[in-house]
């Protein structure tokens, strides 16, 4: 196996680009062998109003992970493990129970565990309440390298409200004091009406590095955008020797912005109306943006 091998545990939909359908192809296109374990088996995401299929039972997730363990040691096979949308606390517990022994193995180089704590967006929870403490349990394990919440998710998980930069700073510092996760990306935060993407790196000394980039705001929501963001961050993070710095976001944000902008334009062209939601981001037809060179990162600002 190549080094670029990732275990991606997210949802599956037959149609559309959310969950594994928004992460697997972009990662593959960037050269990753992706082992996809599906936490759901749905026809499409719920944003269409109706859908069919089911959440994967904890037992099925257990079986799939057990099957993978029987053919290879995760520490040897994977350089990254990504966990995201999981619709039940039961399935989350099963994932936890499989991953903890991987990190307990002494003397091994462990895969970096990236968690996208998918809870909801814009003030609305779309997982059961008991999923929230499960994410806190993941964080408390001491094995998570990087998390990629949106503002709402970070606020729920840190019991804070982010209204200004001082809030952002103190919440990230307090969050790190509690969980010791070395890297955090808040995919989007709105401060004074402007949107930003924020990175936190604990660093080796006491003083963390907190940096942010402006993000072009489109008055529209994009289903699967957070999953695609996490996939791009995972790739850039790995390419940066598993260190989160401004260069990681400088690589990811321009690509994401182009894919979202062009998806919006395609939707507008298809319907003749400015969309308030893009249900299918154009991951495949806009794939060439995935391989574009990184931005220069000159827009970065640091929080003291």
């Amino acid at each position, binding site marked *: 196996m190549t080094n670029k091998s990732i275990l991606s545990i997210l949802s599956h939909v037959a149609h559309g680009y959310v969950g594994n359908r928004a992460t697997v192809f972009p990662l593959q296109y960037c050269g990753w062998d992706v082992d996809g374990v599906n936490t759901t088996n749905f026809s499409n995401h719920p944003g269409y109003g109706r859908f069919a299929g089911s959440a994967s039972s904890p037992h099925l997730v257990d079986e799939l992970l*057990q099957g993978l363990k029987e053919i290879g040691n995760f520490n040897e096979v994977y350089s990254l493990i990504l966990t995201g949308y999981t619709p039940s606390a039961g399935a989350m517990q099963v994932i936890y129970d499989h991953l903890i022994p991987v990190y307990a193995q002494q003397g091994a180089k462990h895969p970096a565990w990236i968690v996208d704590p998918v809870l909801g967006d814009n003030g609305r929870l779309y997982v059961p309440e008991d999923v929230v403490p499960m994410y806190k349990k993941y964080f408390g394990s001491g094995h998570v390298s990087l998390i990629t919440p949106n503002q709402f998710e970070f606020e729920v998980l840190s019991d804070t409200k982010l209204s200004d930069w001082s809030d952002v700073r103190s919440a990230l510092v307090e969050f790190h004091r509690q969980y010791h996760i070395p890297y955090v990306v808040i995919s989007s935060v709105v401060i004074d009406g402007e949107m930003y993407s924020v990175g936190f790196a604990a660093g080796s000394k006491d003083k963390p590095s907190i940096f942010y980039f402006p993000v072009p705001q489109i008055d529209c929501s994009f289903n699967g955008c957070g999953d695609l963001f996490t996939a791009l961050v995972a790739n850039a993070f790995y390419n940066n020797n598993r260190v989160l710095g401004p260069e990681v976001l400088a690589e990811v944000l321009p690509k994401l912005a182009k894919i979202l902008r062009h998806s919006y334009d395609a939707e507008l062209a298809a319907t003749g109306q400015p969309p308030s939601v893009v249900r299918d981001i154009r991951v495949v037809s806009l794939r060439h943006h995935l391989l574009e060179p990184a931005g220069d990162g000159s827009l970065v600002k640091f929080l003291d």
Partner: protein
Amino acid sequence: MKTVLSIQSHVAHGYVGGKAAIFPLQAQGWDVDNINTVNFSNHTGYGSVRGLAADPEELKLILDQLVLQRESLPSKGHYGAVITGYIPNATLIGIVHDYIGEMKANSQQHPSGLHHGLSTPLYLLDPVMGDNNYLYVEQNCIEQNKRVLSRKLVDIITPNQFELELLVGYKIDTQELLATAIQTLHHEYSVPYVVITSLDGTMLGNSSVIGCAVSTSVPGRKLVIRTFEVPVIKSYFTGVGDLFSALLLDKLVTLLSNNAEDALVLAVNQVLTIMRKTLLLTHRQGLEAAAKATGNNGPVQGKINDGDTMKYFELRVVQSRDFFAYDGPGEYLPKEMVH
């Protein structure tokens, strides 16, 4: 309209079924909707496997949503193509084809001017049942696939030699029998495009090759079967047929849209050329990985049911990304089969 509904197996690790077919199609610009007929940790070549086959009731509901509740989805249930591969039992095969029947009943004339009979979605059936005289689906799938063929929904079929034998019900060891079997697919089942893979080279007079036979039925024209001879790479690869069918769909649709003459022959030549590059890359990287892992520089071959060697020879589907765009004349020389 580069949209395709792919209905085949899912494995978390390794490259068979959808894992071998979907990425190449996506890399070629196809929006692929994918329905998983099984949800397994890995393919059975490893000797151990866990997971489940699709639940018939759930499969029905998902197809219903994608195909019949068409107003709620942007695809409106209209796909440019449908591709099916491994489906583990007769019940699931039946359900899948009820919905493909629905799609064909609501179909539109294919824009290709050369092929008046074609309608969208174009349907490629890979009747995956086994290989090398080994059946890896339930026995009743054979009869079920014949019933499917009788519904005359299929535009492109890609059985290997063993699967063709199962469909026609006799052993094929001469070119005459091969021609008869291909005619059965054209005439009895009205399949316009037939490609037979993994043909025993001795039938073509060369035991060091694997054969591929290609035939297009054109009303009013005498049937011409052409064969390709592909040198054997000594290793066991899995997922080869799944990758082949996916690439064939992409190449054939592209050529038909350009109204190319002898589109199927050229498409197969392109696909075989891509397959050879992919297999050589897989073989080379597999040997390197095995040597690195075992400290042994001797020859290693992928063997079925042996996870220790199998794992090194998973198709390098992702690493072969740039091969899939090949649209040249093909590296092989098609021969007209005399029968």
